[in-house]
């Protein structure tokens, strides 16, 4: 039995169990996404139909690899926050909601690790 008052237990916690952190990170990644997604789009259009060797060669340029990793970090972070909001809005059962929030974390993390592995492998050329 907790000796804390009910007020103390909920202080500073919204339905998302956090304060303005979610909002701030959502906006920060949104702003970062503007130049980073433009760079990603430029990279993809430039390599339309390119052979694998050309993509590997481009990724040997450290700036290209670093900016692609930055783009993916910002995009995936933004995605996770957005999907968290969608889940909190539409998934009502407590257990199911927790499961969805967890899967959201797993999914975005797995995508990130897979993409970073691929980019680093090509960039380091080993």
């Amino acid at each position, binding site marked *: 039995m907790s000796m804390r008052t009910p007020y103390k237990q909920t202080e500073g916690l919204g339905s998302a169990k956090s304060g303005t952190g979610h909002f701030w990170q959502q906006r920060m990644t949104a702003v970062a996404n503007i130049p980073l997604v433009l760079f990603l789009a430029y990279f993809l259009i430039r390599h*339309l139909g390119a052979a694998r060797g050309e993509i590997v060669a481009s990724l040997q340029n450290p700036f290209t690899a670093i900016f692609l990793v930055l783009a993916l970090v910002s995009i995936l972070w933004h995605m996770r926050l957005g*999907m968290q909001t969608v889940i909190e809005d539409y998934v009502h059962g407590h257990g199911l909601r927790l499961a969805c929030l967890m899967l959201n974390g797993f999914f975005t993390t797995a995508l990130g690790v897979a993409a970073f592995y691929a980019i680093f492998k090509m960039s380091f050329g080993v």
Partner: protein
Amino acid sequence: MPEPKSAARPLSPHLQIYRPMLTMMMSIMHRITGVGLYFGMVLLVWWFTAAAVSDGYFELVQGFFFHWFGRLVLFGFTWALIHHALGGLRHLLWDTGRGFDLRVVEWLARVNLAGSIILTVIVWVIGYGVKP
């Protein structure tokens, strides 16, 4: 902590009570495109990982993207991305406390919708210029 008692309170009117309006539809589309992009990111990561695996596997994946169905999916992805990005710019403008005048709101919604279509076509024209 005791469970909060649920009192029989009146519910606020929800979506089905309102006449569909452009601004409302754009808000819904912002969320739908966001969810679509979320799952669509699998394709980008698939492409990157394929490029890191082998020539043969990369060609297989390229074959999917250059197939008419792959192109259709990518066209949809392009539109969703641009629509969501322009919608995001609107939200960033609103975050500064500007652009809440109803006429401005309506104008922004139209620009967002028209801009997303025009820019998508432009991107694809450039794309076909790079690789027919």
